[in-house]
């Protein structure tokens, strides 16, 4: 697996444990990008010449591919965006005011990433809606019963991650959706940390909207997707204007194209779409359930080993997927990160764009190690040893 990633040839001694921030890229993606720019580069949706036509076909075929990947009903339900953040903001801006009336109610978990938190907070502000942030457990995982209880009659919208980005816990989305739908609320699911680590079926989940980023699933930067149920997209006005998203433009008024391109104003990130298609194809060919299970077990091994270290708090639990957060008592996560970096271990330290969660846990930051499909036993061993060394170093134990 690892040998398919040229990054690791360039960095043979690096222990990369920051896949939750961004994944490394398989050769298949690099080849696809080169091939696009060398052989197929043309603008889409406008050209009558063959090159432009073929590129448009390739571009649109990725829409079908993403639909299949998420088990959507049709390609018409897939909007290309610039990433999860862009997807979630699109829903908040375009669908939000439709879903949440003045004085309405929005519920989010206390473990959401800023990208699935602030758009709803700001929507609530605009709509003078109640913004409910639900409790978390002391290990940073979402308190699911409390979340379900918060979804009361009168709730209009629920925004949750399928997998959270600090504790790595997986939310029971189908159950949450059921409750929300029973109460008449829409559910927006942030799949940024899910798609690379589990198989996703938006119809089985019942999600109304589902967002993810290409760069976190071995794809290129600057691209992502939004799934939206067809009947809901039909109600959603565009929020960016220009280029091919139109039907007719008159001086004093315009009408919009049908379908997802209504939301894709301007020249899209064509190489990004093609590249995301190549990455998803690579992923589906190379990463099966067994491989994901190995990844999950590495994370669990790490959690177990870390728990054996004195004065160390591990967030998440053994159902958590590929993300492991922890803290050494009395040692600031930044200092740990620098120490590990000196030993060629790339991990993240900080609030992980989850300040509401940090506030709930009463901590400023955590150290976070996250796994990708290229990590191995050796990476776990090196990290554990280095964490032990960091503890000795900063506590002056020698």
């Amino acid at each position, binding site marked *: 697996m690892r040998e398919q990633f040229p990054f690791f040839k360039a960095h043979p001694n690096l222990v990369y444990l920051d896949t939750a921030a961004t994944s490394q890229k398989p050769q298949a993606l690099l080849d696809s990008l080169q091939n696009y720019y060398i052989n197929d580069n043309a603008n889409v*949706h*406008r*050209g*009558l*010449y*063959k090159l*432009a*036509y073929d590129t448009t*076909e390739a571009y649109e075929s990725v829409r079908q591919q993403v639909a299949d990947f998420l088990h959507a009903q049709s390609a018409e339900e897939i909007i290309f965006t610039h990433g999860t953040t862009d997807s979630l903001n699109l829903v908040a801006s375009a669908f939000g005011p439709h879903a949440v009336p003045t004085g309405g109610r929005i519920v989010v978990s206390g473990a959401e990433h800023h990208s699935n938190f602030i758009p709803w907070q700001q929507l609530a502000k605009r709509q003078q809606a109640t913004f409910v942030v639900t409790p978390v457990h002391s290990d940073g995982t979402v308190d699911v019963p409390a979340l379900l209880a918060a979804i009361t009659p009168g709730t209009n919208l629920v925004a949750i991650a399928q997998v959270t980005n600090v504790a790595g816990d997986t939310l029971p989305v189908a159950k949450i959706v059921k409750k929300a739908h029973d109460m008449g609320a829409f559910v927006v699911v942030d799949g940024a940390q899910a798609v690379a680590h589990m198989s996703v079926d938006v119809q089985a989940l019942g999600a109304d909207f589902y967002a993810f980023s290409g760069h976190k699933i071995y794809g290129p930067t600057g691209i992502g997707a939004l799934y939206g149920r067809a009947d809901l997209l039909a109600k959603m006005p565009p929020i960016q204007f220009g280029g*091919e998203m*139109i*039907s*007719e433009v008159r001086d004093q008024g315009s*009408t919009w*194209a*049908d379908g997802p391109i209504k939301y894709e104003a301007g020249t899209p990130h064509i190489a990004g779409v093609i590249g995301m298609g190549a990455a998803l194809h690579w992923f589906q060919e190379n990463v099966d359930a067994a491989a994901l299970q190995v990844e999950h077990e590495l994370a669990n091994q790490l959690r177990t080993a870390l728990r054996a270290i004195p004065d160390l708090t591990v967030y998440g639990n053994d159902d958590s997927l590929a993300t492991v957060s922890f803290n050494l008592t009395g040692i600031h996560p930044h200092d740990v990160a620098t120490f590990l970096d000196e030993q060629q271990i790339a991990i993240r330290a900080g609030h992980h764009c989850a300040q509401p969660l940090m506030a709930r846990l009463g901590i400023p930051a955590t150290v976070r190690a996250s796994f990708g499909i290229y990590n191995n036993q050796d990476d776990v061993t090196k990290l554990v040893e280095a964490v032990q060394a960091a503890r000795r170093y900063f506590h002056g134990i020698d």
Partner: protein
Amino acid sequence: MALTKLDQMYRAVILDEAQHPRHHGVLADFDHEITVRNPSCGDVLHLQISEKDGRVNDVAFSGNGCTISQASASLMTDQILDKTPAEIEQMVETFSDLIIKGDVPDADRLGDAAVLKGVHQFPARIKCATLAWKAAAQVLTEKGKTDD
């Protein structure tokens, strides 16, 4: 110059059809009306159909478009005369298939319009050829819905 493929699409009859389209204009009286667009190229087609005893008894189109879309609209309007909506729906499917594949068993159902099959070698032009046909199917089944 590789004009063979071109010639297969732009048969003389097609160039002629586009230059002297049949049923071009507007009807004083009609039962169905639709305006469709090909937004990527700006083509606009306005189609009016009048029905009598469950069959198309008059039809007219206007708007602007390329040779292929004009010829196709002209041929389509001629072929749907005296047909029932159900028959027309089937013709539209057959036509779509023909334009995509270049050959279908039941092409003769399309009469003269089958001459457009050369379009299949120009995938970028398929939408031009099918615009009028899809409009007819849409307006006859969805009863006058327009896209605006």
